[in-house]
């Protein structure tokens, strides 16, 4: 699942739930945020950038691999 929430740091402010442009992170009142729709993550990084606790990092699916070779072959 693309966003990984570190629940030891998360203070349940639910900012990520509100701002996720894809509505992929959800919660219930007073509960911790859950990545409910991981396949709908756009990897825009908003949740990670805006989290006041710095509790969120992105994991990139293998399908999203950036392809590269050594330059100057």
């Amino acid at each position, binding site marked *: 699942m693309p966003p990984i929430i570190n629940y030891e740091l998360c203070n349940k402010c639910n900012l990520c739930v*509100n*701002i*996720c*442009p*894809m*509505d992929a992170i*959800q919660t219930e009142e007073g509960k911790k945020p859950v990545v*409910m*729709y991981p*396949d*709908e*993550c*756009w*990897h*825009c*990084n*908003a949740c*990670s*950038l*805006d989290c006041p606790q710095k509790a969120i990092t*992105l994991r*990139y*699916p293998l*399908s*999203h*691999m*950036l*392809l*590269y*070779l*050594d*330059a*100057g*072959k």
Partner: protein
Amino acid sequence: MGYVKIRKDSIECDILVVGGGIAGLMAAIRGTEMGAKVVVAEKADTRRSGSGATGNDHFLCYIPEYHGNDIESIVHEVTDSLYGKWQDVSILRVMMRRSFDVVKMWDSYGISMRPHGEWEFNGHAMPGRPLINLKYDGRNQKPILTKEALKRGVKIINKMLIAELLTDGDGCVVGAIGVNIKEREPEIATFKAKAVILTAGNASRLYPGISPAYLFNVAHSPGNTGSGQAMAFRAGARLVNLDIPYSHAGTKYFARCGKATWIGVLKDYYSEPVGPFVTKPSKEFGDVTADIWTSVFKEKMANGTGPTFMDCSETAEEDLQYMFWGLQCEGDTSVIDYMDKYNIDIRKHMIEFTQYEPMLIGRGIEIDHRGAASIPGLYAAGDLVGNFRSDISGAAVWGVISAEHASQYVKNVDCTDVEGHKLILEKADFYSEMLSRSYGSNWHEANAALQQIMRDYAGNEVRSETLLCSGLKYLQDLRKYATEQVKAANSHELMRALEVFDLMDVGELIMMCARERKETRENHKRSDYTFTNPLLNNMFQTIEKTEDGVITEFRKRI
């Protein structure tokens, strides 16, 4: 879930803005300044929604103190660039004249429009030609514009998607149907508005993306699903230029905008430049090959001379630092994060680029010099406009212009009662049906089915009468099956389902227009009309719904 909840009282305003992206927030800010009561309905959250969610770094504009007094040469440059010729120059000129005003507005809000002190233009550029893209730091543009809107008294309703426009007996737009997705259980809300400004962005997710398993691996926001174009058409507004496909390009397989932020040279496997524009990395130009010859990546794969790479290994360290700063301004922090995590070092590694799937940007609602659509009470701004394109700055500037005219318009009209409008019950019935199905198809299946039909029957490789006619029939079948079978377990799934139905509408209109353009032009490649017909030079095709059915027409570019 039983019958969908319907909110009792309707939400009343002078201007309803549909979508709180760049265009929507600017329309709301300006409309409120002009004295109108403005409500923004945004299906996500205006702080981080739309294609400008986490930033942008190029703002197309004309700044007299930088460019001199010849606006025409700058206007001409725009149509030769990434933004293309599928725009009415008269409309583009209106926008360019106002562009510096909006740059100054943003600067005054605290969006850094001259992060290094001076007006700085670079990227998306050809050697020997004027530079038209102002380099700016847009990483916090959305939170800043949200704050400015709230400060002026704009009412922002987040988690509220607008599904349908409401018109009166004379065909004037008088409101809209919204769906509140904040809670698990959706609620229909009705809006009574004297005017509506549609700012719902482009149409992504129409064609299969680079990772078919991940529908959301697209360069522009996957939340933009042609809903503005679709609901405008359904309400009777004229659309334009749907027949000419546009495809963006960038990193493979991590779809992302920002190709012009990279400072390097596009090269082949043997480190030979593929395009004619630059042979050494240039901060001033970037490598505009990806803007001008967007098909280069696929062509080289198809003929076996690919892949094609962005090579920054000869870029000076100072320019690399500038590029990384630019990627942050553009909102591409996840690309940087990815490269860090996988130890990709662009000082020694070259990154493969590709062309992405076709999408609608600068294809859609036809507007006039006021930003007004062809039906009374309806305005449009941003990427969903069909006879104009300039991405982020176009969204911002037309947001302002359309709101100025809409706020004049609303002074002379009264609010119309929309309660009991037949469309509300019709939609409520349909949503309830989807919500109450205990088994059936999910939106994902319908979206994938649409994408494979679009790819095979209206793609940008080949089109023809037989393909398009067959494709239209298959799309109609798909719509019927989806209408009968799609289920939604909650408000989130209902939103996704409605997006797919909008995409189906847009897909069908693309096919109808593609059928009528009986020639080959740019990425509209007809195998039965392989030539470019001079009689169709500078001719735009429109499509609209009338009492006599759906009609398409060609008109002159103005």
